[in-house]
């Protein structure tokens, strides 16, 4: 990409960007942007657009972003219809302009999902994800009450599988890419992280039931196995976490059914 004279290749772009105020209908706005270096990230291109808007005395486009190194999960743009853009396995902040052509028209939208209302322009409210975690995405352990770490051996394959699932950054691309607006990949990843570890066994059923219930209440849809979520997940989380979520949910419901036919335990609940 670096030319011999040390100067960079640049692009001239047409941008169709979503403009919306909270609680009001939105619409696309068109802007031309010249001299975008191919080495710039997509968000740096958006910074350039915003600087241009400031010069023109117009309001900038609000968008969520923070670490800009693909780990915080804050950036959330649908680019040409694809959450996080056309490159597999990366977040918007790690998408670079060399993946686009000179003269191209790029459409930039917020995450589109019922459970993620637009706050302004490209920024959406993803607090539904936090609510699901608050319902059960944890192992109850009070500060100070943990046993010595090596008292809990975890077989390496189990630890590795838990880590694969724990890589989820909670960005919401799975929901945005799903025609049902389902959060099953997100919830499945967390269930798979905690439910397979020895430390997570005590709360396994409670956790699964509580997280699924909250997921439904937060307005996320069901999974019908389209697989779009897997295709757009920037951390390449795979569909099997949903299968395991369904298995654990069934297991917990069956156990709940049979235990509820007997007398309630004296321990309460």
């Amino acid at each position, binding site marked *: 990409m670096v030319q011999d004279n040390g100067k960079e290749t640049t692009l001239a772009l047409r941008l169709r960007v979503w403009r919306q105020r909270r609680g009001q209908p939105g619409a696309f706005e068109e802007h031309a942007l010249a001299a975008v270096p191919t080495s710039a990230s997509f968000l740096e291109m958006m910074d350039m657009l915003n600087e241009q808007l400031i010069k023109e005395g117009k309001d900038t486009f609000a968008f969520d972003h923070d670490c800009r190194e693909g780990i915080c999960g804050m950036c959330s743009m649908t680019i040409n219809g694809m959450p996080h853009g056309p490159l597999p396995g990366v977040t918007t902040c790690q998408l670079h302009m060399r993946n686009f052509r000179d003269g191209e028209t790029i459409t930039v939208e917020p995450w589109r999902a019922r459970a993620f209302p637009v706050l302004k*322009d490209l920024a959406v409210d993803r607090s539904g994800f936090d609510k699901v975690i608050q319902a059960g995405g944890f192992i109850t352990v009070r500060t100070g009450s943990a046993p010595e770490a090596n008292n809990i051996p975890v077989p390496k394959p189990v630890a590795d599988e838990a880590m694969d699932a724990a890589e989820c*950054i909670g960005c919401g691309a799975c929901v945005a890419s799903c025609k049902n607006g389902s959060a099953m990949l997100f919830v499945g990843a967390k269930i798979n992280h905690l439910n397979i570890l020895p430390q997570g066994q005590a709360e396994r059923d409670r956790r699964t039931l509580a997280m699924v219930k909250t997921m439904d209440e937060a307005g996320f849809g069901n999974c019908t196995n389209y697989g779009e979520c897997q295709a757009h997940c920037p951390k390449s989380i795979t569909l099997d976490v949903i299968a395991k979520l369904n298995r654990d949910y069934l297991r917990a419901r069956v156990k709940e059914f049979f235990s509820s036919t007997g007398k309630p335990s004296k321990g309460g609940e």
Partner: protein
Amino acid sequence: MKLDSKIPAGPLADKWNNHKAKLRLVNPANRRKYHIIVVGSGLAGSAAAASFAEMGYEVSCFCYQDSPRRAHSIAAQGGINAAKNYQNDGDSVRRLFQDTIKGGDYRAREANVYRLAQVSVNIIDQCVAQGVPFAREYGGLLANRSFGGAQVSRTFYARGQTGQQLLIGAYSALSRQIGLGTVKMHTRHEMLDLVLVDGKAKGIVTRDLVTGAIESWAADVVVVCTGGYGNVFYLSTNAQGCNVTATYRAHRRGAGFANPCYTQIHPTCIPVHGEDQSKLTLMSESLRNDGRVWVPKDAADCGKPAAEIPEDARDYFLERKYPSYGNLAPRDIASRAAKEVCDEGRGVGQLVDGKRLGVYLDFSAAIRRLGEAEIRARYGNLFDMYENITGENAYKQPMRIFPAVHYTMGGLWVDYNLQSNIPGLFVGGEANFSDHGANRLGASALMQGLADGYFVLPYTVTDYLAGEKPGSRPSTDAPEFKAVVKDVNDRVARLLSINGTKSPRYYHKALGKITWEKCGMARDKAGLEGAIRDLQALREDFWKNVKVVGAGDALAPELERAGRVADFLDFGIMMCLDALTREESCGGHFRVEHQDAGEAKRDDAQFAHSAVWRWTGDGQLPVRHVEPLVYEETQLSTRSYK
């Protein structure tokens, strides 16, 4: 300003236990009568908020991100140190303490560092119980690696995402409390000021970033865990939103700011690619184990592709200057050496602003020796990340790297209890100054954040609350709150009304240029004096000519940035002043005038102290106070890597 470090008496190894035994307690039935505000939800903030709530206090937690899980602790890659000695290689609390205090170039408080090493072992227990998927051996027990030049393997890690996994652990503990209703979480809220009543911290004023509402919140104690100030350099490895506003606003209300000139520059980051760049990305330090660092001997070769430069025309400058450590020279040394060759005009890569700021990190020798498959196994994910960002294949051509601002050791001054000089204002994590001295060792930032949050603040804040009458906190209708709310409203209105010609980002970039050039890897008297003058002029220009678009009653990213840049401008002046008055070199602070042939030259006779700055007024220079560093059990020595 009274600076009583409150270090407990007795032998170093017993201080914390003796102190804990004397700290006062609060009756469980009374705890719910106290309200604790925690600002920030990174490792320190999340861990503290969760722990307070588990104890029975009423807690409110604030963060500017849309979820507490996004705090920048999440980006730490390498690992977390703990003196577990699982590897049977002679590690101990004493050794971790010694390494940390030496790594900080003897500019940290002995008692704090010892406590950090002591509680490090509890952190690992806590995180494992939470389900943090640390790397394991086949036997199911925890794996360790050696990191940052340590002679023992004491670093615990979760692939290259240790910070992410530790934060998710703390976030899950916090989430559980939010679900139980014991923590009220306020996301997308930014702390814009601190409220003092009768000289004690009793609340904060925030802006709701979605609605623009300016609100005040009263509490019995305020705990600030808002991270570091690396973005004063504009380009850094920090997240875009990281800022100094919470700590600087507290400083303006009377809190001392300690050692702002202690900043850490990491040698292996992806170089700047252009003038529109917004951030720098770190590449793990482990790459230096197999990569050789070089630049062309002749500046005329710098524009050529690396393959066209023959072996004898290359300068492997780290191997030449530091034959015994070579490419593994410590962070500060390697960073300065790269800057020197680029200043000589021998840098490589694109021209940015008329300069080539990059050096090669070349794996060709290692690929010839070990084969490409082995290099891929060791560093495949890093090579992929590099290619994704630069479009270059590092198996075929050398990587280009350059140093970047990474961590800030300075912060609000705190005593042994992590309480600032304002009663009722506690500070945890990177936001305080206490544990790393003039330089931080790898894998110790995560350790400090969690130590403060899980194992120090719950004890010391309880002791403070035991001295406050339950139910005595003021209401937000008190005149002190009204006055601060008015200050904040006035400031926001002023920023929106200037309607000048230059964007907040323009000023942020201009600020970063000055601080990086004059107060970055190498500093000198004339440069720092010039920087202070330039920053004062820039500050004046900002308040006349900044243009802030957007509305005060909606999500307004330009308003957020303008407020943060305004505080960074004032803070930058204080940072340069601190660097100017510290007439020695130590750790990350390198004064060109004070060196032994390129090595940092400390002056223990005059500067074995922390410099603590007191705010004196808008646009005026702060005043320097001193807390002497007393070493009871440590011999001060010179770091040498030749």
